[in-house]
């Protein structure tokens, strides 16, 4: 490790904690999903799951807003990676949604879980694209 420590610093602009916030957002929807799925087939009070989903969506919106304010960010690379990741995660989210529908899930739990999948399918590609784009050296540098 010591032999390579000299290389350990990476010059990059100050960036918002996108990865940390993204993981917190994912943790909230995972918690909501576990809460709902652990009560099947009993009636599930939806309020805790809705609160967790709302907080997760709020973190996603905050993350997008914070990142959009970063000047000189490698947006071309960001969107190049984000659009393909979005396609991949939309497919996996679609598969999970298909399993829910096959299990005749309906009503409030279906809506909450579907919206959770939307947050997942947007936030994960954003994290991937951010991780790649943050190390892109701007052309002017």
């Amino acid at each position: 490790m010591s032999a390579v420590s000299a290389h350990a610093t990476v010059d990059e602009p100050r960036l918002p904690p996108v990865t940390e916030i993204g993981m917190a957002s994912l943790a909230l929807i995972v918690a909501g999903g576990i809460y709902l799925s652990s009560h099947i087939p009993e009636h599930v009070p939806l309020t805790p799951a809705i609160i967790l989903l709302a907080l997760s969506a709020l973190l996603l919106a905050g993350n997008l807003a914070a990142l959009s304010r970063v000047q000189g960010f490698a947006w071309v690379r960001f969107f190049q990676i984000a659009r393909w990741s979005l396609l991949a995660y939309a497919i996996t989210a679609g598969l999970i949604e298909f399993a829910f529908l096959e299990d005749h899930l309906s009503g409030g739990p279906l809506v909450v879980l579907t919206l959770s999948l939307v947050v997942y399918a947007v936030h994960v590609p954003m994290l991937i694209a951010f991780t790649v784009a943050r190390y892109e050296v701007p052309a002017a540098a």
Partner: protein
Amino acid sequence: MSGVTVVPSEVATHHEGAGPPARPPLEFEIVPRKGLIVVAVVFVVLIVAIAANKLWPLMFLHVTGGAAWTIIDLFLGFVLGPILGRLSIPARIELVTKLMPKMLIIMPTVVTVALAAGWQLGNKLGFVMSQSPNHGWVVASFIVVGVMAIVALGLLEPANIAVLVELKKPQPRPEVIERLMKRFIYSAGITGAMQVATLVIMTRLASG
């Protein structure tokens, strides 16, 4: 894990000093396109199995997907990861550029298959129902899988893609690759350790 760093010294040498010469980008596909055909076939089989809702296809997909996921995580976290840190620099680069593109399509596929077939199987066998005597173990597996998913989706996979993109550049930065590889290997170690919990839960469930 302290020795687990991948710093291409060839790259470092090129990067040091004024006006480092750009080398031709390494020849590899970040996402192996031929592998996507296999992924598509596996997903079609998964969809058919869920729609048919028969015991054997669901059991087959859940056990094979879950076994592949567990074994790969354990092997990567505890066997290959430490070895990677002790390889010569060119060997590390070669291994990374050959291994990680495959991981990029294998891991999301086996995870999706294991989870989707597992959920359907749990429904069919009644394990996910709250009245089931095994329900506590099923909820425990949800929590373990949830933690692994957060680590994998938030840390491991972004690092996997970012290190490949960096290696593709004419002048990859060694410090970036070092940071990303550390993140990848530590995340793999965490998910590997959590797979031990998965093994305990799944063997307990299978034992009735």
